[in-house]
């Protein structure tokens, strides 16, 4: 084999070596790129899950509060009924005492 052929062989081999390294570099970039996309999907899925859970929490809190508000309405109705009953029972006495106060104070 002549010296020129040997040099040609070396040049071809180095070209092949560069291709191997370049291909690996391209593949590495692709791996990183795909990983970044996967990372973004993970983040988006977590955010979506959190938002879904948030909606459920807010809706639950609203329903619970409305139920407690209904209880407050019932208690208020009881108080109002008690006051109306007391008013019927004690009105005459209150009027009498008030008249005495105005007359005698």
């Amino acid at each position, binding site marked *: *084999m002549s010296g020129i052929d*040997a040099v040609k*062989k*070396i040049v071809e*081999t180095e070209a*092949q*070596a*560069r291709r191997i*390294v370049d*291909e*690996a*570099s391209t*593949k*590495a*970039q692709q*791996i*990183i790129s*795909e*990983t*970044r996309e*996967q*990372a973004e999907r*993970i*983040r988006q*899925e*977590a*955010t979506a899950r*959190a*938002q879904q*859970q*948030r909606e459920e*929490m*807010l809706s639950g*809190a*609203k329903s*619970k*509060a*409305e139920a*407690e*508000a209904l209880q*407050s*309405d019932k*208690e*208020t109705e009881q108080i*109002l009924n008690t*006051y*109306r009953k*007391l*008013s019927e029972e*004690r*009105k005459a006495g*209150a*009027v009498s*005492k*008030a*008249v005495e*106060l*105005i*007359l005698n*104070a």
Partner: protein
Amino acid sequence: MSESLEKLQNRILSDAKHKADETIKDSQAKSQQILEEAKQRAQREFEEIIAKANVEAESIRRSILSSKVRVNRLRILEEKNRIVEDIIHSVEDQLSSFSKSERFEETAQRFVTEAVKAVDTDQPVVRIGFRNVSKKNLDGVSKVLPKGGKLVVDEKPIDNLGGVVATDPEGKVVFNNTFKSRLERLDNQLLTLISSTVFGE
């Protein structure tokens, strides 16, 4: 020479493959790190959203409840106010027809005495006016006036409910002793009395 050339070629290719393997390994390691960081960040963001949602949910709950409690307190206050107003109307009704009472003359005399004392003059002018009361019903009242005093009898009840108004001769000093003005003067005591009697407060 051919053999050493082949060795050199093999060496070049072997180095390249080694470098390629290292590049891929590095990228895989970096990829693993990116994924770990992404998972941690996603978890942090998830927890932040949930923590904020907890605060938001509590705020919604408090807002709904406090609004309801406010409305219900107002309903209770309005009802109590309605009851008290109703009682005061009844009191006014009784006072406006008080002239029918056996205690009328004694009370009218006392109102006149209080009013005369308040204006503090020898010549008080006393206006008196109750429902269904004329001059002839007021003999007893004239007796409590000082000698220089003057009694003016109104046909209609003064301030609607009736009562007495005394002034000095110039009309500069006035003491209003009508039922209405007594109701106004005793407003606080009256509300306390009615509330304690009806609601036990």
